[in-house]
């Protein structure tokens, strides 16, 4: 027996594992109760078990039913995945700081430059220093105007150690 659809097998596995985790956690961590007197664990446990079952079905069919293109998952786009999510995380780190590692808030402006740089790197052909500087500067100026001046959103704009307020 071989896997006839990689996509289905992998997603079935994902559903089964997640469902099992929820069901196990609900059953052990919270009061389950009865249908007439449901505890906090009842509904998630039932859902978790249903998800396990569905995941099982999906996996079973992925082994039995032929799929025309073989349901190949294909390569993951590591570069955009890493860069886009990384840009997002870097933005958060710089904007708000992280007391855990003693990083002070660096503010919106620096965060925008960092985000643009890393995001542009997502596409190998996209990144040039010039493009990065132009795009970041435009976005930084625009964000300052719209979000800070106009909409008056509350967030650190400049690094915490630069006192510009």
């Amino acid at each position, binding site marked *: 027996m071989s896997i006839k659809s990689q996509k*289905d097998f992998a997603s079935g596995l994902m559903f089964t594992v997640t469902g099992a985790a929820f069901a196990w956690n609900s059953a052990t961590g919270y009061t389950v109760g009865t249908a007439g007197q449901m505890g906090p664990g009842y509904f998630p446990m039932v859902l978790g078990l249903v998800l396990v079952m569905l995941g099982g079905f999906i996996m079973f069919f992925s082994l039995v039913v032929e799929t025309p293109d073989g349901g190949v998952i294909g390569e993951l*786009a590591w570069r*955009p995945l890493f860069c886009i999510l990384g840009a997002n*995380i870097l933005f958060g780190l710089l904007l708000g700081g992280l007391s855990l590692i003693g990083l002070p808030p660096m503010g919106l402006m620096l965060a925008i430059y960092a985000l643009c740089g890393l995001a542009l790197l997502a596409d190998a052909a996209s990144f040039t220093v010039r493009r990065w500087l132009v795009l970041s500067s435009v976005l930084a100026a625009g964000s300052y105007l719209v979000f800070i001046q106009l*909409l008056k959103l509350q967030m650190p704009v400049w690094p915490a150690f630069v006192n510009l307020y």
Partner: protein
Amino acid sequence: MDLLANLATGFAVAGTPINLLYALIGCLLGTLIGVLPGIGPVATIAMLLPATYALPYATGPVSSLIMLAGIYYGAQYGGSTTAILVNLPGESSSVVTTLDGYQMARQGRAGPALAAAGLGSFFAGCVGTLLIAAFAAPLTEVAFAFGPAEYCALMVVGLVGAVVLASGSLLKAIAMIILGLLLGLIGTDVNSGMARFTFDTPELTDGIGFVAVAMGVFGYGEIISNLAKSDLEREVFTARVQGLFPTREDFKNMMPAVLRGTALGSVLGILPGGGAVLASFASYTIEKKIKLKAGEVPLGQGNIRGVAAPESANNAGAQTSFIPLLTLGIPPNAVMALMVGAMTIHNIQPGPQVMTVNPELFWGLIVSMWIGNLMLVILNLPMIGIWIKLLTVPYHYLFPAIVLFCAIGVYTTNNSTFDIWMVALFGLAGYLFTKLGCEPAPLLLGFILGPMMEEYLKRALKLARGDWSVFITRPLSAALLALAVALLLLVLLPAIKSKRKEAFVED
């Protein structure tokens, strides 16, 4: 006339200059983001939602909701523009628009196609608004007759509807719903006050922010998969857009198609379960069946009817799908689920009580939907040229900007970086879902309905002393569940199954 009095109340609220301005801004922003390739209405609304929080508190939640309605229509229209010009449907309901719209664009008739979409949508929107105004009040009465068992059954119908319309495998779509329901349960349980599945993270006790889920799964997920694709499908027809207005001949062909689409869309939209998508597919099928006039281009090769009918059906359905939302508080599709989230953030619990407790808000919102539609026509027909220009901005300038707006937007919902980490997590999940062929829209609907469903299920079974048969012994609930089963069977029937495949296969 109650209807007229109610509409007058609405106009008094939505017609104030400041609210008109918000509607205008909403439409502009919605179109601006919605027109970007690969960003559908759900992603657009998720991204722009935070902008509505920033509105001055003095004007109250009405203005925010009005702006949101503007964003909604702008996003829908922007999505059709990309579908026609770039052959990239931003959402499943504009899939059929690409069939004839893109062909028209290739023949240099993008202008009439866009105008047909705009005018058709406007007409459908007018009819839809009137229908809401006429039926919302009586339906609210029905809503008060609903007990917890009926609410549960109705939610099942809605969720099954979402499954039926998902484009991939049925089992996977159901699994995505369950996953969504489970994710929605994360946070404090209202009955016991117990924090569930929070891993002792204080930020999670309020639950996962749905903006974070929507933006991560739809926004980032889509950007990443777009970047992973090669440039070949991003072929844009911008140079050859001339002659914006449809000819007299076009109008003659368009009118009956618009009428048919509107009628179909209005009826299907009321059904919980994402009627808009179903409506656009069904109306395209009908147009395909109708005999061609002499000299008319067959559908699929650039017939204006193939754009006008599904677009009006889609918009009429989108409009009437507000009915289950406003009267029962149950979102029929992912976009409406977002609207529920938005309303909750503005401290409004959608449901029958909104109309009685807060009639200004209710009727103001309904009228503003119509105004949003009108704005679109006034704005977008002359401005089509500008939106098209936007499509020529290289993607490498666009996507960092989109990432930035997502990040800023999600940060401002709670002013905490925690939500930024959550977006990253759900961005990863969203990308994996696309890779594994799991459609994310049902997940979002489940996510919103999770806590609601648990609450009603709990109540229903408590009243019935744990007897599950309550769902089939109460006639209304039994009827709804039968409807859900019928919907499921409909998809499973081989004939429809192959049709569904056909409709969703991209050429």
